[in-house]
């Protein structure tokens, strides 16, 4: 087959689209920047692509709540296209604002499989302000309940024990809708990334930069193909983006690139 095709959705206020496209290109895919209007007006079909990325930014100014207005466009206007896209086994990654969009449109975690209910949210940081800082991340436990799975999330498969990425957001505190939802996320191994300190231990602020419940930084759905995270993997694809690369302790390749490679490799193998 040819190159994996990635559609990078942008709209008013999207601003991490170009670097996300670059990360996918480095991972070997073709990436197209497409305005949401082209999709809602029927000029472009989502299903012509293997992977969809919703990049960071402040879509529609984050008015009302972060990601909410774009979330509703996916939820209502693109309902059928989106469901087909997911049912056909394609992949979605939402980064920062994109994660907010996936959660607020019901695509994540989508525990009841209906795409209808909002089961969690990303809300204002405990610090009540926007913060740009680097965080250490670890994969969540595989879970122990019925649906437990090792490496459920296809995007984080085989990444290092602890990875280092920047966050830059004001509304990134992950909150599940209720205790049962939290339990299922844990039991079924859907917590893809957690905030930790450099030794992998769970610590409070600033290691957990926003006050997320149980240090959750990223989750996936039960297929593992839909993945959302607050940190920015596209901002750590080369060593020069690492804040301490001049101390000569950084690897040449950034920790974030593996995530894009995983998505592209999975699509290549399965689609």
């Amino acid at each position: 087959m040819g190159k994996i095709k990635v559609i990078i959705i942008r709209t008013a206020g999207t601003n991490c689209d170009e670097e996300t496209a670059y990360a996918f290109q480095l991972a070997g895919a073709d990436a197209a920047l497409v305005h949401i209007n082209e999709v809602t007006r029927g000029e472009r079909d989502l299903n012509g692509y293997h992977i969809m990325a919703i990049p960071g930014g402040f879509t529609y100014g984050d008015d009302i709540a972060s990601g909410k207005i774009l979330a509703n466009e996916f939820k209502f206007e693109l309902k059928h296209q989106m469901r087909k896209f997911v049912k056909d086994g394609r992949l979605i990654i939402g980064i920062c604002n994109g994660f907010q969009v996936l959660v607020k449109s019901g695509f994540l975690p989508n525990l009841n499989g209906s795409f209808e209910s909002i089961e969690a949210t990303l809300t204002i940081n405990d610090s009540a302000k926007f913060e740009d800082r680097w965080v250490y991340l670890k994969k969540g436990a595989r879970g122990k309940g019925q649906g437990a799975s090792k490496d459920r999330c296809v995007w984080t498969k085989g990444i290092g024990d602890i990875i280092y990425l920047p966050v830059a957001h004001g509304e990134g505190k992950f909150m599940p809708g209720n205790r049962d939802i939290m339990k299922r996320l844990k039991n079924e191994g859907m917590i893809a990334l957690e905030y930790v300190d450099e030794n992998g231990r769970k610590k409070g602020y600033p290691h957990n930069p926003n006050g997320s419940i149980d240090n959750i930084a990223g989750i996936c759905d039960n297929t593992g193909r839909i993945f959302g995270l607050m940190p920015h993997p596209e901002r750590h694809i080369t060593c020069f983006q690492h804040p301490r690369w001049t101390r000569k302790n950084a690897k040449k390749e950034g920790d974030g690139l593996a995530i894009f490679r995983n998505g592209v490799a999975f699509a290549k193998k399965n689609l």
Partner: protein
Amino acid sequence: MFWRIEIKEKEGHFDALGESAKRDINDLDLRSRAREVKTVQVYHLDGELQEPDIKTICEDLLIDPVTQEYDYSGSAEAESRFKVVEVAYNPGVMDPVEESTKKAILDLGIAGIRSVRTAKKYLIKGDLSADDIRLLAEKVLYNKLVQHVVKDPSEVSAEPPTYCFKLISVDLIKAADKRLKKISRDGQLFLDLEEMRTIKKYFVKLGRNPTDCELETIAQTWSEHCYHKTFRGLVKYNGKTIDNLLKNTVMKVTKKLKKKWCVSVFEDNSGVIRFDEKFNICFKVETHNHPSALEPYGGAGTGIGGVIRDPLGTGLGAKPIINTDVFCFGPPDHSYKKLPKGVLHPKRIMKGVVAGVRDYGNRMGIPTSNGAVLFDENFVGNPLVFCGNVGIMPRNKSFKEAHSGDLIVVVGGRTGRDGIHGATFSSGELTHESHGVSGSAVQIGNPIQEKKLVDTILQARDLNLYSAITDCGAGGLSSAVGEMGAELGAEVELEKVPLKYKGLRYDEIWISEAQERMVLAVPPEKIDALQNVFKKENVEATVIGNFTKDRRLRLSYDGNRVCDIDMRFLHKGAPRTVRKASWKRPRFSEPRIIPKKDLTGELLGLLSNPNIASKEWIIRQYDHEVQGGSVIKPLQGINGGGPGDACVTRPVLNSKKGIVLGCGINPDYGKIDPYWMAASVIDEALRQITSVGGKLDRCAILDNFCWGNTNKPDRLGGLVRAAEGCHDIALAYGVPFISGKDSLNNEYSAGNKSISIPPTLLISAIAIMDDVARAVTMDAKKSGNAIYIIGKTHDELGGSQYYKMKGYVGNNVPKVDTPTGKSIMESMNKAMDAGCVRSCHDCSEGGMAVALAEMAFAGGLGMEIDLSILPDSAHEDIKRDDTLLFSESNSRFIVEVENEAKFIKIMKGKPVFKLGRINKGKIFKIYGMSGDILIKSDVDRLKAAWQRPFKNM
């Protein structure tokens, strides 16, 4: 039908906004504290909406079902236990969320929505009187320029009245001098008598009176803000007449240096230099002082929004890639009681300005990577807010030319009553009445509108759909169309300009400084294709007129002629000002400081001085990594790091080429001598560039002068000296100016007293770096490595932070020896290229002691420094340890060296002196000239002192 919806956090959910409002309230030190603050978001929806529609809107759009609940029948919260303050936007002020909320309601399939207005309700618990509540609301919850406290929640803001055309002319041709002055004052024209007389003469010749619109157009074009009449006028100084200060100083440097990589300088909206074979880079820095003094959040936000449109309006449009910001505020611990009338507290201004830059820059997706913040008593009434932007564009898009016959197209946001008289208002002094009379001069920004504008303009540019572009900044359409059509002529039909709301008069449409608009010159055959590009992404592009060839500016409203004047008179007709300048060096008392044996306390004090202390609180609120190009960040090293000298950015992700940005500013030196201030801040900006690995031969600089009222000879004399300093030092360093801007009249008059800011010059430096992998940071890297100081230290504590901490200014302001400085910087480049420098930090505020301490704690490593091993030649005239440690002599660097032999060889013949080494432990020690221990501290303690002041803002 009209609906009022209230949304609040569910019980048990943390109200982060309420918590942060509580912190701000309790900062005020009222008699009693607020125990709890809750916030309620209010939406007023109007339209053909039924109850089921409202339920859908609430549940599917307005609330977060996990954390929030809603009510549309009354109050969402039982309010009896609280004092309630509801804040709403004033009529006529754009509600920033209206447009997107309307769109989102339409997306839900609900078509009847007409308007959306929002308000915020604060519920406050505490023993606070009604007076306390009124005071705290005014101090921290709202700004009366754009908002008000709602008295009756059922009140609906009235529809603005419709406008009926009525031509207004001003009786000028018969007016005597006294009347001319009154016309200028009453109309907020800020024109002097000479200028009014010139205008009168022009219209006497035409045999008619001017319309209000004509007079406004002339006032705006001739304003200090747009015309720079002080800098371009005649100045009598020291028995000679300087004809055009700008041309004779700053611009002369560039002309003499003839750098091949300077593409377009002092011509376009920003200065343009070459980046590589494919791209050029442009850079512009502006100030937005007066608006930020009155409405810090909106003022600073539109400051950054405005400067972003400068690169966007340069050539055929550059993509904005880096923001810079530099602020000068009054002391954050200033007493509330001693604030002059009508002035906002420095802390309020600072928080508002930072939030304004943050929200605009972050939403635009432009990293804010470089800046500085300074504090001084004399900025209390008149803070300074400098905002800069760097853009990148293909080389073949660097020039523009409008043609007669091209259509005039306004793109982006709609025009409202915001920002009327901004250009003329910024040309006057602030007074305690400014809050009342100049309210409309403050604009409200909408960064997403501007982001859409950038996205679409760059597409239209790459399709070659227009022939010229410029931004609608100060002076609005008047300035943009007036400048673009200066050599051609222009005809505009004002009723075609899209408006935010009804009721604007023709002259208001013409001079409104509503944000997020650009003007394009479009060949008629390309108009359809152009409009299509904008339409696709929901941006308005409207034809409002065309460029002609008769060099007249003609405006009409609904077929009525409202302006018809000669472009030559408009742009060349202003009388040249003749101003007197004189300067006498002020004498400050010479400090008497008793020498101390232990200087640890002094160093800790300096590290906690607000001018030196960590600005991490600000830096982290800015997204400085968006676009993925950040290579050297503002904070460097471990655990929150230390203050980097310059930032390095890679604008093209698959290239190793980088942009280095640094800045120099020091109002404390300006108090003593503006010439040496200019010299020092140029040296500082260039030191910063050199520190990270940038080179002088690919470096350009920008000037931003902020001065008091230059109608006063002493203020103007200082300005002349600063401009002369710029000329001499930049020329000697071989560094051209590529752009600049001046902001004069930075004074605050309360009663009969006028307080001027200290003379302040910001020098912003930009350099192109071939390989970012060679960049160097300031954090100490490895124990055992040697520490050297490069450059000699002199007894130059005048204007130093050490003196300031002790309450003095002093007189020995640092000077610059350019031949030595240049050779030091060039040999530093060689040493860095050879890989011998592991870390490097420039010595600036706080002198070598602060630089050494910052390097040590940034790397989390101890140091052992011994001043007794310095030869006398390193500090010929210094006998005291505190002078040696805290003097701020220019052209000095501290470097960490791994291969000493190689380093010494490269630096041969330069003033290079060993100071000591990096230690294994965490102890930072300095021995004095006599060999006794002077300073001893754990580096963590030093760092804590540096981080403390702004930690819990």
